[in-house]
C-alpha cells in the first residue's frame, strides 16, 4: 500500500540564473526556487497498478524520486506499507523496487553481476541470490545473456536486466519510471507481462508513462500530474468517464486544458 498526501518539493535557483518571460508566468517559479512538485496526493492499494501521467516536466520523476527516498520532500507525507519514508528511509527502501528512466546498470559488469550486486546491497545471502536470479532470469528469458557485459547488450537486454535488478529483493512495492520508453515491441510486451505478474502477486505497482494504450490495458488507477499538482486521481473507469466516448487521450487532454484554465484564472 502506497499513500501520498500533499507532497511538495522545491529546488533552489542559482543566483546567477535569470528567469525567462515564460518562466516568470509559470506558477511553479518564484524568485528563489522552482517548485517542481506543489501538491500531489494519491493512494495505490495492494494488487493495484497505478498509471502516472503528465506532460514532460510536470513533476512525475520528482514525485517518484521522493517515493523511492532518493529525494526528501519539503512537505507532505509518503507511507510505504505504513512506513514513513522520511523517518525510516532505510526500512522503506527494503520495501521498494525502483526502476529509473535510465537503466541504472554498470556497463563493466555482466547481467548476473549487476543483479547480484544489488541483491547483496539489499542484504540477501549468496545462496538465496542464486535461486532468485535463476527464477527472474527464467521469467524474463535472460539466461542467454546472463554472463554478457552490459556495455555489449542491446537496449532490450539492458531493460530486462534493469527490471531483474529492481525486483531481485522481492519488493513489496514496485515503482517504474517510463519502463517501456525506447523499447521494441517484443521487449515492451515482456515488461507489460511482468507488471501483470506483479499485480497478480498482489504487489502495488506505480508506473509513469506516456503510452495511454498501456494505461488502458494495465491500470486500475490513474493519476495525472500537471505543473506539480495531481490534477486527477481516480480509477480507470472514472478517468474514462471524463469524455463521452471514453477516449483516454481526450480525457488526458481535457484534464491538462482544465488545469491550464484554472492557472490562468
Amino acid at each position, binding site marked *: 500500500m502506497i499513500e501520498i498526501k500533499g507532497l511538495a518539493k522545491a529546488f533552489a535557483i542559482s543566483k546567477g540564473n535569470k528567469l525567462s518571460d515564460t518562466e516568470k508566468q509559470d506558477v511553479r517559479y518564484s524568485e528563489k526556487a522552482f517548485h517542481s512538485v506543489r501538491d500531489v496526493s494519491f493512494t495505490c492499494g495492494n494488487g493495484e497498478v497505478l498509471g502516472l501521467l503528465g506532460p514532460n516536466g510536470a513533476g512525475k520523476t520528482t514525485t517518484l524520486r521522493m517515493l523511492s*527516498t532518493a529525494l526528501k520532500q519539503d512537505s507532505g507525507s509518503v507511507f510505504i506499507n505504513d512506513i514513513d519514508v522520511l523517518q525510516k528511509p532505510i526500512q522503506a*527502501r527494503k520495501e521498494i523496487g525502483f526502476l529509473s528512466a535510465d537503466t*541504472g546498470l554498470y556497463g*563493466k559488469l555482466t547481467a548476473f553481476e549487476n543483479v547480484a*550486486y544489488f541483491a547483496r*546491497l539489499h542484504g540477501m545471502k549468496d545462496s538465496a541470490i542464486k535461486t532468485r536470479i535463476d527464477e527472474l532470469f527464467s521469467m524474463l528469458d535472460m539466461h542467454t545473456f546472463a554472463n554478457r557485459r552490459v556495455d555489449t547488450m542491446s537496449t532490450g537486454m539492458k531493460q530486462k536486466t534493469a527490471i531483474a535488478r529492481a525486483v531481485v529483493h522481492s519488493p513489496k512495492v514496485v515503482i517504474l519510471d517510463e519502463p517501456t520508453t525506447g523499447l521494441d515491441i517484443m521487449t515492451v510486451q515482456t515488461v507489460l507481462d511482468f507488471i501483470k505478474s506483479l499485480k497478480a502477486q498482489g504487489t502495488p505497482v506505480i508506473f509513469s508513462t506516456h503510452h495511454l494504450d498501456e494505461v488502458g490495458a494495465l491500470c486500475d488507477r490513474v493519476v495525472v500530474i500537471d505543473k506539480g499538482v495531481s490534477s486527477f486521481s481516480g480509477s480507470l473507469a472514472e478517468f474514462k468517464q471524463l469524455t463521452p466516448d471514453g477516449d483516454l487521450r481526450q480525457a488526458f487532454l481535457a484534464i491538462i486544458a482544465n488545469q491550464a484554465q484554472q492557472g490562468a484564472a
Partner: protein
Amino acid sequence: MWQVYFKELTELLRDKKTLIFVILLPILIFPVLFGIVGLVMATTTSKAMEEQHRYVIINEQQAPQFAEALFYHKNFKKVETTLNSEQELVAAIRNDEFDVALVIPADFASRKAAVQQTEWQLIYNRSSQLDFMYNYFDEMLKTYTEELQRGTLSQLGVDPANLTAILKPVELTRVNTAEQRENIGESMGAILAYALVLLCLSGAMYPAVDMGAGEKERGTLETLLICPVSRTAIVLGKFLTVLTTALMTALITVVSLGVWGGIISAFADLSKVSEALASITIVDLMLMFSLLLPTAAIFAALLLAISIYARTFKEAQNYMSPLTILVIVPLMIAMAPGMELDVTTALIPLTNIALAIKELLKGTADYGLLALIFASTTALAGALIAFCVHWFQQEKVLFR
C-alpha cells in the same frame, strides 16, 4: 561499504584506462624515461663528437706549436681567411663561413718571452647545449700552457719537476662526514617524494571521476542511492577504492623504480648507489608508506568530493586540473635549497611529507617530527573524509 568497495574495484580492473594509468604507466614510466633520456644524450654526444668544425686562426705564427696541434686534431678543419677584426670574424661565423675563430694577439711571442700574461679570444656560437668546442680548446690549451710553464721555469732556473708545487702550493682536500646514503638522500629524496605524491594524485584522479561524476552521467547513482545502505557506507566504499588505486600507483612505481634501478646498477658501475640504497631499512620504507597513506587519503577525499559535485565526467576533469597545480607548489617548496624539516615546516601540508621522505631516505629523520607530520596529515585527511561524507548527503550536490 565492502560490497560497494569490491564492486568498484572489479569495475576498475575491467577498465582499460585504469589499467593504463594505475598499473602500466607506473611500470613503464621509468624505463621509458631512462631510455629516452639515454638515447637522446647518446645520439647528441655521438653526433657532436664526430662533428668536424671549420676554424680560422689569427696570428698563428705567434704560437706555431699550438697551431700545429689544432691542425692535426680530428675534429677541426682549417679554413683560410683574410679577416682579422672581431666584428668581421663574428659576422663570418654568423654567415656560416666557418664555425670558430681563435685570435692570438700579434705580440704574444714577445710577451711570452717577457713572462707576461696574454689573452686569447675564442669566437664561436655557444647556443649548442653540449659545448664540445670549448672543451677541445681548453684541453689543448692546458697541454700547451704546461709546456710554456716548463719552458719559462727552465729560463728562470727553476726545476720544472717542482711545477705543480709552484703553481698550486696548497691543495684543499674535502673530508665529507656525510654517509653515502645521506648524500644520495639529499639529492634524490625531494625528487622521489615529488614523484610519489604526484603519482598518488594521478592514481586517484581517474577512479574518483568515474565513481562520482561518471555514476551521475551513466544514471547509476540514483539506483545506488535507493538501496537500503546508508550514504555514509556508499561514500566510504568509494573513498576506499580511490585510496587503494592511489596507493597502488605509488607502490607499483616504487617497485618498478627498484627493479629497473637494480637492472641498471647491474650493468653500470653504481655500487655506491646500491650500497646506499641497501642501507634503507624496511622500517624506513614502512614509515614512508605510513606517511603516504594519509596523503593519498587527502587526495581521495578531495577528488571524490569534486567528482560528486560535478554533473559530468568532463566537468569533473575541469575542476580537477587546478588541483594539480595546488599540489605541485608545496612540493616545489620542499625542493628549494636550504629547506629543512622543523616544527614549522612539519605543519605545512605536502611540503612536510616531501621533507619527511627526504629525511627518511637520508637516514636522518627526527621521529618526533615524523609523528607530528603523521598526526597533522591524518587529522586533515579525517576532516576531508568527513566533508566528503557530508557532501554526499546533500541533494543539491547529488541532483544538480
